[in-house]
């Protein structure tokens, strides 16, 4: 699969989560080890649901786990409406 523009900190988070293995993470999120590996290597962008599940395992918010670069699609941060 092609490399996605969404990078992540999963490897780092796994290391700090008592050196959790890819298989352990895969078991906890209901995915295969190969999928966790592909996500870590930024070769696969997970669905929102899977992204939330991964973030929940580490007790983080999704945007703390996944990073989407600002200049990728020309979008700019506007002031929040809320």
């Amino acid at each position, binding site marked *: *699969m*092609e490399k996605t523009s969404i990078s992540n900190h999963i490897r780092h988070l796994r290391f700090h989560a008592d050196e959790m293995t890819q298989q352990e993470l*895969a*078991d906890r999120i*209901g*995915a*295969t*080890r*190969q*999928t966790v*590996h*592909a996500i870590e*290597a930024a*070769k*696969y962008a*997970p*669905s929102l649901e*899977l992204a939330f599940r991964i973030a929940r395992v580490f007790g983080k918010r999704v945007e703390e786990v996944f990073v989407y670069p600002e200049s990728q699609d020309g979008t700019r941060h506007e002031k929040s409406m809320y």
Partner: protein
Amino acid sequence: MSRQEVYAWAAILSNVAFLLVYLAFVFGIPSALAAYEGDLTTVLLWIVFIDLVFQSVITMQQRKVMRVEKDERDRLIESRGYKAGYHVFMVAMVLLIGHLFVQGEMASFADPVYLARMQSLPLHFLVVMLVAGTSAKSIVQIRAYRAG
């Protein structure tokens, strides 16, 4: 190697085994290879045997493993495989329909022996394309898994 990739390899092996046996059964061993008929038969039997063993091992392992076997990425890759298979089937259908259209016209001037041979051709063509379509699905899946 993921389990789904193993299944894709197994499917290709089965397809090749089936296709070789089918073609040998329908069309016979090519005359150019007639001298090696015994060896070819042995090779065919070995391929079928290896396929049977491979499928049995996979089935037995499947019962042991309690982990997730297929997830969203596998389904995405599978859908790409189905897309490739669909394209193969569409090309096959277009060729077959084209052939059926011109078959009537050909009857007026073609050699009768040639025509008689042509009549059973669509059936064999469909069988071969069925195998080609499923193989295309497996090949696309393996390619996607290999790419990461």
